[in-house]
């Protein structure tokens, strides 16, 4: 099937197998490999992106469902020279180690702040429940999100 979608501001029209997942299109067709695959049961959140302004796990979305959608991935929120405040906060607070969960974590955290202000420690922890991190023990991630919300 042919689908059109806007990814990080650029429109793409592509022919995809009916059963392909959005994450496969993002990683393999568009070569945006910042969106990661960490599980096969939609539990880990490493593939989190924004679809029409809301965070979704891109492994739970069929490519066909994203036809016409506006997609933002980690590559689309900031650059090394002009970081998004959430990216900046992750670096400043040492909220990442191996970096594998980080793109999904940042995308979830941005959505959480955008819809959930004001957040406190508890609500950040609950809001990030769908994203697994094995390195940080979440301590600095929570700190980073609270830090970023003041700057967003």
């Amino acid at each position, binding site marked *: 099937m042919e689908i059109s979608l806007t990814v990080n501001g650029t429109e793409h029209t592509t022919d995809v197998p009916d059963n392909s997942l959005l994450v496969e299109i993002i990683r393999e067709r568009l070569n945006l490999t*910042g969106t990661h*695959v960490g599980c096969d*049961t939609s539990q880990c959140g490493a593939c989190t992106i924004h679809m029409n302004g809301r965070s979704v796990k891109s492994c739970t979305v069929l490519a066909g469902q994203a036809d016409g959608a506006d997609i933002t991935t980690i*590559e689309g929120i900031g650059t090394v020279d002009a970081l998004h405040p959430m990216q900046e906060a992750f670096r400043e607070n040492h909220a990442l180690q191996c970096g594998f969960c980080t793109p999904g974590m940042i995308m979830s955290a941005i959505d959480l702040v955008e819809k959930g202000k004001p957040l406190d*420690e508890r609500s950040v922890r609950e809001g*990030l429940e769908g994203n697994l991190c094995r*390195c*940080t023990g979440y301590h600095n991630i929570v700190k980073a999100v609270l830090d970023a919300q003041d700057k967003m």
Partner: protein
Amino acid sequence: MTSETGIGASVKRKEDARFITGAGHYTDDINQPGQLYAVFVRSMYPRAEIRSIDVSSALAMEGVMAAYTGADLAADGIGDLPCGWMVKSKDGSDMIQPPHPPVAVSVVNYVGEPYAMVVAETLQAARDGAEAVTADFNEIPAVVDLASAHGADQIHEAVPGNQCYDWELGDREATDAAFASADHVTSLDIVNNRLIPNAMEPRAAVGMYEAATGNYTLYTTSQNPHLARLVLAAFVNVAAESKLRVIAPDVGGGFGSKIFVYAEETAVIWAAGKLARAIKWRADRSESFLADAHGRDHRTRAELALNADGTFVGLRVKTVANMGAYLSLFASSVPTYLYGTLLAGQYRTPAIYVEVQSVFTNTAPVDAYRGAGRPEATYVVERLVETAARELGKDPADIRRLNFIQPEDFPYETPVALTYDTGDYDASLKKAIELIGYDDFAERKASSEANGKKRGIGFSCYIEACGLAPSQVAISLGAGVGLFESAEVRVDVTGSVSVMTGCHSHGQGHETTFAQIVSDKLGIPFENVDVVHGDTGRSDYGLGTYGSRSLVVGGSAIVKATDKVIAKSRKIAAHMLESTEENVDFEEGTFSVTDSNQSITFPEVAFSAYVPGNYPLDELEPGLSEKAFYDPENFTYPAGAHICEVEVDPETGKVEIVNFVAVDDFGEIINPMIVAGQVHGGLAQGIGQALLEHGIYDESGQLVTGSYMDYTMPRADDMPNFVVDTTVTPCTHNPLGAKGCGEAGAIGSTAAVMNALTDALGVVDVPMPATPETVWRAMEGE
């Protein structure tokens, strides 16, 4: 300049720029032109004889390029996956290592063991092809239960009683005598639950082969690419070391599970040679659950003998350790040299005796997982000590203080083969007690009780042996490799520096920490130092990253190489300044002649080394690049005090960690921010073991916690905020004075949580993980 980015500064990490922008390069992000995809066909049976495998329908499918079985690999001379550490039994006999073909040939021995591999043009075609492979199995009842595995139906022909070895350490007679004359004996039966590592990046491999040169390149998710190359070359016979380049690019966490050489990368690189095409494989998470090496899984009977005043006089430990179905790369060393040797803990216990039987079961192989043996040892010692304090009516802090090895006792030789170089255990305990507010605990407990909650506090004063390892000691104890580390400090013409290390960073932040060391020592900007790791084509050699060794061993090698650079630079500078080496000082990047105003900068010296106009060519070679190998004299001994406070809801059995303090002595610290992060992560894994995580096989041998729906990973709302702090006694035998910090969190915390929980409930033991149901049953007296 160096004060903000040098040794001791919390410099923000160099590696973060790529990770926060999605620009990291993990193995699955790497694609090669014309690449094929591999899918493994895995056993659904815990134990079965393979009567036949039929790959013909798979081969007939569109897009399928090849389908291989274990027999194909064997026929091509591909060897077994080895275990790199020979442990000897009490009677002096060698451990028994059963054959471990990368792809099963005649039997399968755990659910998830691969018995065929299908390679196809697309991932989907490879999956369809794998589905089309049929096999005729003769199922055999599996050996699953660790307690009865020894003496159960024999799994491997070569291994009677399923026993790999029966090892001992310490003085049995002296220990028995101590028990015979002791006033009190505290005994515990302890189960250390099986864990599944779950680095967030699943394992992956991309294998490539160039027929014209015979060169192989393997991208793989490895903590130690040089070791992977050695094993694949020397043991598995894929190719000569010189023809095989192993690259571990960005790796998304390891925690031990990516130390080992597994079936999949072995088969992938071999098949890449057969087909002369690049081949990619990436594990699904369910494959990670089944086929990554698991951790822990001990059953232990432990006894502590004390005098009436609380002085420890003897410790006796008997452990059965699960090896799983085959010996993974370092499996044999974990419950022996990384466990039995740590049973002295922080205490002057004069007599210790430990026996460990390692047995095979029809489960996934078990090997090192964060801490590897040391968390198990700490759990035994610290649960015993806390229980003894309760039985004798002593304060848990007091009984520890009474038995601590004192600062003046160092170097201290333990009864279990280690010599601790330095430490001040009471300093950490004292600080931890202050930070948690131990003196006010009774008030907090009373206020919890007023709210219908049960509150408890628990201590854990752990020790670990890190910085693996003095090569000669390790080799004399059975290690198959040296455990030194290499480094190269390559100064460019313009004075920028590349640092090559054999350690590998998969979250630890070496690119930052190592750059801090070099920039500090050379007095050049932090930004001008790049750290290169994870590529056998770019760094000489190395043993990789595990056992909290990178800074201690790898960092020391870097210091050594940097010192060589400085020594040569000093000679060049002396020539340029028309002085002598002895009269040239080096400080903050500038060489100056003593008591004069003549000076020259490090970049100027570097330039002169490569453009040797004014240069002592008769004495010195041009260029400025130095290598060093560093072999440690001893292990390092990080130690600390963790105190946990829990609140239990008696209605539901839910345990909440309301306070957690970790005070650790890691010796000198290069980057405090990174060190605190390492502790946080370790604590989450240790707390996860205590309260959440459990790898369970059902009685038939099926893994029933094989997804994130059933294996409880710690999530953000399961974890508390941590209070972490440090004390410092510098390591006495490495140039950085550092001890290593990577595993401490996972080593100390588990016992602290369970000591707090048993204190809250007023019971002797609760099995881990202490899920709400388990706790509720413990309260009901079940």
